[in-house]
């Protein structure tokens, strides 16, 4: 579960997020939608502190994941990122073998011995619905895979370190329709075991896969409700205008 309380975020002098409070439940898929530059990706990247990598940024407010304040002084960023996995917009496998890509997180976090790693890699690839396609070529370069397979590999890589939460930043925007629907099915499966937050530009996608949807605009959370309600009967007119494609 992710609880955000009164989050403000700044790039230098520019305020990218304005007083955002919302709660994302466990075992649900929460989608963030909104026009480009609305702050939805920025907000997502707060959950595993990826914004720490950008110079001259500042956050205030409180962000709890599974009850822990992830921005407290005592919080450890590396173990947070083990707990909160991320899948990026463009598939970014490492220039290593398929096996080593999935094993990477286990190795850097010193999780388990050789046989455990072997087991875990297989489990993760199965969970990411990739095992059958790659089981005979685990030692081949990850770059031999298609874009959609690479993205599922990145999902397997994130699952391997046993996170509780998975963040997805437009995970299907660089993929073809078939690969996209595979990823969507996968998200639906993963929901049983993980908290999933997904940023998407694709409104149909949000409607198809998410339980709850947050609509962001100009750094504000305009509306946050059950996905069905959001798309059938939004409360605000601006939401209505956005999802019916009147601007974007």
């Amino acid at each position, binding site marked *: 579960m992710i609880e955000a309380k009164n989050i403000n975020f700044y790039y230098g002098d520019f305020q990218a997020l304005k007083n955002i409070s919302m709660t994302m439940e466990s075992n649900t898929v929460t989608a963030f939608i909104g026009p480009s530059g609305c702050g939805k990706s920025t907000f997502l990247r707060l959950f*595993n502190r*990826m914004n720490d*990598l950008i*110079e001259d940024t500042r956050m205030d407010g409180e962000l709890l994941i599974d009850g822990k304040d992830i921005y407290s002084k005592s919080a450890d960023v*590396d*173990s*947070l*990122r*083990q707990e909160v*996995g*991320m899948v*990026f917009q*463009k598939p*970014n*496998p*490492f*220039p*290593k*073998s398929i096996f080593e890509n999935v094993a*990477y*997180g286990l*190795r*850097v*976090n010193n999780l388990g011995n050789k046989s455990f790693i072997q087991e875990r890699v297989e489990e993760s690839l199965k969970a990411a619905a990739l095992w059958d396609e790659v089981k005979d070529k685990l030692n081949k*370069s990850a*770059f*031999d895979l298609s874009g959609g397979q690479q993205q599922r590999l*990145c999902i397997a*890589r*994130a699952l391997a*370190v046993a996170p509780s939460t998975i963040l997805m930043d437009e995970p299907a925007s660089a993929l073809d329709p078939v690969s996209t629907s595979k990823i969507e099915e996968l998200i639906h499966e993963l929901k049983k075991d993980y908290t999933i937050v997904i940023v998407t530009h694709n409104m149909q996608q949000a409607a198809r896969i998410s339980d709850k949807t947050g609509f962001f605009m100009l750094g504000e959370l305009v509306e946050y409700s059950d996905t069905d309600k959001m798309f059938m009967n939004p409360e605000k007119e601006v939401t209505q205008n956005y999802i019916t494609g009147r601007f974007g």
Partner: protein
Amino acid sequence: MMNKKISQQIAFGTFKLFGVIVIAILFSILGFIIFNGIKVVNWEFLTGFPGEGMTSGGIFPAIVGTLYLVIGSLLFAFPLGVMSAIYTNEYAGKGWIVKFIRMMTNNLASIPSIVFGLFGMALFVNKLNFGDSILAGSLTLGLLILPVIIRTTEEALKAVPDSYRQGSLALGATKLQTIRRVVLPTAFPNIITGLILSIGRVSGETAPILFTVAAYFLPKLPTSIFDQAMALPYHLYVLATSGTDLEASRPMAYGTALVLILIVLIMNLFASLLRKRLSKNNKSK
């Protein structure tokens, strides 16, 4: 319409002509050296000591000396250069200090090599009291190639996509782990390019070794890093300018040049093979 075509043909013809000229120049130099040098290059030439006022015998000690200097200078400059490039590219951010370091590195690269020779003599030979020695020569040559290694390493690191770094960090890896396990292995084939350039540079430079290591003639091979050594480029210089009988030692000079070129060629070949092997995983289809 006709005009466009004609000017296109003239331009293309000109480029082709200049390309051919450049290649012709290169091959005639190479051909000249091979033609003049091949006559003296034989087993004895490669494994023997110079004899009869350098008009006969071989160049074995100079080959050994050059190999020592290549290895010595790389042992010193390669780790130092790679680590400092990692610092400036991965850790230091984008402040003025880094810009300053980068500027100084570029300046260092454009200093004439004879100046390095003088500096090496002042610091390593005299001040630190290493004497004329392989150590002093290697350190001086190391300084000379340091900027090359730093620059190529920085370029290699810059070519590693940020998405790899983010992917690694997002899995809970530390920055050091990310650099060691993802960034460096990805960049390494390109870092080898710096190594290749450096080998060529070190093998061929004469000025930096003039006052720091090179011996006119040695009756035995060096046995420690504090010994002087002969080296191919300096030996070539000696053969060409200050032998007892210049006419008689001329073929020896060409032979030496040929061996020098071959050594550089072989080392480059070796490094490219290494580069190929290392970049096996980096290729996307």
